[in-house]
């Protein structure tokens, strides 16, 4: 079953999963947008501009950081492949675009983040499945009845753990009653996601190790968890107001 799935969505076809997730996530987010006092149209535009900036920024950042290669072949900038892409550069460009667009449209920060939560939660599920298809984010070797055969070893199916945890997080975020203050839904989602990333990081074999011992993903997830819980506490106690100001 897993082999069939991996054959069906072998790279670069694994991107189909992400494209489908963008469509589904956006539809669900728009459906619930009014609940967070955000217009569905503004939310749709926000997602569109954010994705466009992510794709363009990721490619441009990659080209700039490999300038000599791109000066030799400038037309490669327009290739359709996804390998010449820097996710961090893309993320930074998307964040900047979202901030500028949100400010221009006078979108309230926490309301918008709450409205975006279903979109992000669906994307997290698809990311786990695309990891499974590509064989990336693989687990440590394990002698378990549910281990999967990958890269010449029986391993923890960390990609399935990831997809399942993301599915549960989505289910919770979708069924939670409206939070008393804007931002709490998004922060609940962020804390849960950071929490399971921190937990599951222990079973991953592909992570960079800090100080030769500590998986980078786990450390970053702990920091994200701490920030999410701190912000949750501040918002819930009224230290941060609904428009995002202190």
């Amino acid at each position, binding site marked *: 079953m897993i082999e069939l799935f991996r054959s069906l969505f072998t790279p670069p076809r694994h991107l189909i999963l992400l494209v489908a997730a963008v469509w589904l996530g956006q539809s669900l987010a728009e459906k619930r947008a009014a609940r967070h006092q955000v217009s569905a149209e503004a939310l749709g535009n926000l997602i569109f501009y954010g994705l466009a900036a992510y794709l363009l920024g990721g490619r441009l950042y990659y080209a700039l950081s490999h300038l000599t290669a791109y000066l030799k072949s400038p037309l490669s900038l327009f290739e359709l492949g996804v390998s010449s892409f820097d996710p961090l550069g893309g993320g930074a460009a998307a964040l900047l675009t979202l901030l500028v667009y949100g400010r221009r449209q006078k979108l309230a920060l926490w309301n918008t983040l709450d409205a975006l939560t279903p979109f992000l939660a669906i994307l997290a599920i698809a990311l786990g499945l695309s990891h499974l298809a590509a064989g990336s984010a693989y687990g440590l070797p394990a002698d378990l009845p549910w281990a999967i055969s990958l890269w010449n070893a029986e391993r923890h199916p960390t990609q399935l753990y990831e997809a399942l945890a993301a599915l549960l997080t989505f289910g919770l975020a979708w069924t939670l009653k409206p939070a008393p203050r804007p931002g709490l839904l998004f922060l609940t989602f962020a804390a849960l996601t950071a929490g399971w990333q921190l937990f599951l990081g222990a079973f991953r074999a592909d992570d960079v190790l800090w100080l030769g011992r*500590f998986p980078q993903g786990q450390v970053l997830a702990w920091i994200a968890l701490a920030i999410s819980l701190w912000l949750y506490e501040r918002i819930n106690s009224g230290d941060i107001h609904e428009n995002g100001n202190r």
Partner: protein
Amino acid sequence: MQPTRRLFFLAILAAGLAWIGISARTGASNLSAAPQAGFPAPDFSLQSVDGKTYTLSNLRGQVVLVNLWATWCPPCRAEMPAMQKAHEEYQAQGLVVLAVNATVQDERSAIAPFLTEYGLTFPVLLDETGQVSSAYQLRSLPSSFFIDRQGLIRYVVNGPVSEALLYARIEELLK
């Protein structure tokens, strides 16, 4: 209620730190060869079209680009001029391009005219039994594996490689 929640959050963070400590790696992992970034490249020994035998492990110390291709595959054809340029430009710096023809799913007689048509001068190896296709778990053509001087696969590209991407990956490994 608020102090209880704060204590709960602090307990979660403390448990998180403890979990990081518990799950810290204690020894160097011993990876077996696999066709994935971060793993040692699966070794192989193949004959080239001109009868020479190439063994991947003998090229340790050099940067190796293993490109799996077939004559009937349009993206493989499209990327060959870039492969040739890269071979000419970086060969002196320690790059070895090994173009492994998936002969098991190609016409042997189509290879020589192909090499003449594109003026290819790097080694073209014949995978007549499918051993490399199998060891590299070939799922799509072309597929390129960028191998560093220690014999570790650093990048895998499924599908065509653009000229700039090819140069960028090679330059990173030659540094």
